């Protein structure tokens, strides 16, 4: 008993002294804390930086030249016209929306289905293998996807549906669906995993089958996480650039069928920025498209975050 008390007393004494000691280690500790704090807020700084720098290049155009009404309602995107350049983004918005819409139509059921299989049915090695395959699917670069659309899907669509052009909404929608699937599967699976096992056990104890447990208990409980997963998938599709540029046909169109070629907002920037003079109207118009993309994806991500936070509060 005796030595222990002395030990504790000594350590308490030393700790008290330690708090006041301003030696080299104390200063290093404070310096590191400051450095790490700067690193910590770097994410905020970069997001603000992105917004500031794209607005800096684009806002003069919004203020002086751009007719917002025309921008949002006219399908005529003719920034290079000599006499009368017009900046109507409607066709580009329609292009992005149609491709993303088709992608989600294809991809959401399969992604959620895959998430349910991985999260609720698969066990052990099968589960790990499926998760790794989904991860590898996410790793394929977007330019490779675009190339696949161009060189494999294009002839396939022409032959199967007997249409003149295979670079269209269908092609880029399918490609984009495959690209958005892994992120949705992963996040949806996380959402299912977050449902406490006690819920499942309670339902099973009442005699429910696995499917009844999933349908009546797990899915309703994980609903918000699934919504967030879909939202992030939409954000991914909305912002995808190279694959859409290469597989959508890149022609300005208000699509009426899945076999129409379209042009996306992202692809327009990628295709035209290289040909514009810094500071020209065209250049600033492209930054305006960038601002639109930034704002829309920001809102989508924010909504997803709020939806997820909603369940945590409950």
């Amino acid at each position: 008993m005796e030595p222990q008390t002395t030990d504790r007393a000594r350590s308490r004494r030393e700790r008290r002294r330690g708090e006041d000691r301003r030696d080299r280690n104390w200063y290093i500790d404070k310096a590191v804390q400051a450095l790490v704090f700067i690193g910590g807020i770097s994410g905020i700084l970069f997001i603000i930086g992105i917004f500031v720098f794209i607005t800096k290049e684009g806002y003069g155009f919004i203020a002086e030249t751009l007719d917002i009404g025309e921008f949002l309602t006219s399908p005529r995107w003719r920034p290079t016209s000599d006499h009368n350049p017009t900046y109507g983004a409607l066709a580009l918005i329609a292009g992005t929306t149609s491709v993303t819409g088709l992608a989600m139509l294809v991809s959401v059921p399969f992604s959620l289905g895959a998430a349910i299989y991985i999260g609720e049915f698969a066990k052990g090695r099968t589960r790990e293998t499926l998760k790794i395959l989904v991860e590898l699917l996410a790793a394929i670069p977007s330019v490779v996807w675009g190339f696949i659309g161009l060189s494999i899907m294009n002839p396939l669509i022409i032959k199967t549906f007997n249409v003149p052009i295979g670079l269209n909404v269908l092609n880029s929608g399918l490609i984009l669906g495959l690209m958005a699937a892994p992120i949705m599967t992963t996040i949806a699976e996380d959402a299912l995993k977050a449902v406490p096992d006690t819920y499942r056990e309670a339902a099973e104890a009442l005699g429910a089958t696995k499917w009844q447990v999933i349908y009546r208990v797990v899915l309703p409980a994980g609903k918000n996480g699934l919504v967030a997963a879909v939202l992030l998938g939409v954000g991914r599709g909305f912002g995808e650039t190279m694959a859409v540029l290469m597989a959508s046909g890149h022609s300005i169109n208000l699509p009426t069928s899945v076999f129409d070629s379209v042009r996306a907002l992202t692809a327009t920037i990628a295709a035209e920025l290289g040909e514009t003079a810094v500071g020209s109207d065209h250049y600033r118009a492209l930054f305006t498209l960038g601002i639109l993309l930034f704002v829309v994806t920001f809102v989508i991500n924010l909504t997803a975050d709020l939806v997820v936070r909603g369940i945590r509060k409950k």
Partner: protein
Amino acid sequence: MFAPTELNHKNRRNQRLVRMLFLWMATMLIIPVVLILGILVYRGGPMISVDFLLTEPTNGMTAGGILPALVGTVWLVVVALLASVPIGIAAALYLSEYASDNWLTRIINLAIINLAGVPSIVHALFGVGAFVLFFRFGTSILAASLTLAVMTLPVVIVATKEALQSVPFAFREACWNMGATRWQTIRRVVLPNSVSGILTGVILEVSRTAGETAPIMFTGAAFFLPFLPQSVFDQTMAMSLHLFVISTQVPGVPEELPFGVALVLISMVLAMNALSIAFRTYLRGRKKW
């Protein structure tokens, strides 16, 4: 009394049907990828040779190899890592070791999620506005790599944070009770126990960085440069942009050439990913606590 009723049978049948349906859905995501990889290997495989990897493109990029693009991608990735790994680790250390659960932490997390969600082409616009024009780096490896670094920062932060948080809290408490400062604890206990997890994240970032195209298109990657870059202020070719250029911009490219380039690119990326996954699995098996 406990004999299976008609309802039990029906339920069991449904159960089996549903299970098959979900398995089918999962495989439908996997099959196209396997097919695509198969086609890439089948058509691109014959292109690959030592010559292909180690010579320059010739005849207006319709023949020859891919050496400048390979070397360029290595430059871009290395410089991007030099910028993003220290910042990413610092950010993860702050979030995992210092931050309390308050509004600032919430905003930081939200910013990181958004940074990962901003379209790659918007990152490209940021790179042009900030690094190329404002900081006057011009179109150079430096500008392109910094753009890539900002874009892939969330990958490092998320992976590092996870690695740091997998170190049991008791390790830290033990160290603090010995009178160590916070930094001494991090340097001597937390980092050594999580370095391999951090490395997994870094490898994953390499794979992401190597495949990106849009952010480097206007910030430092060139369509065609017959020589290798000498410093970070040079422009460079890159594998991803090279694939885009020869499959869409150059007339008269033989059909198989882009398949070869795509195969090399995807092999690099998937090899890095596989390495990271293998590393992670190995670590999980070895963990002592």
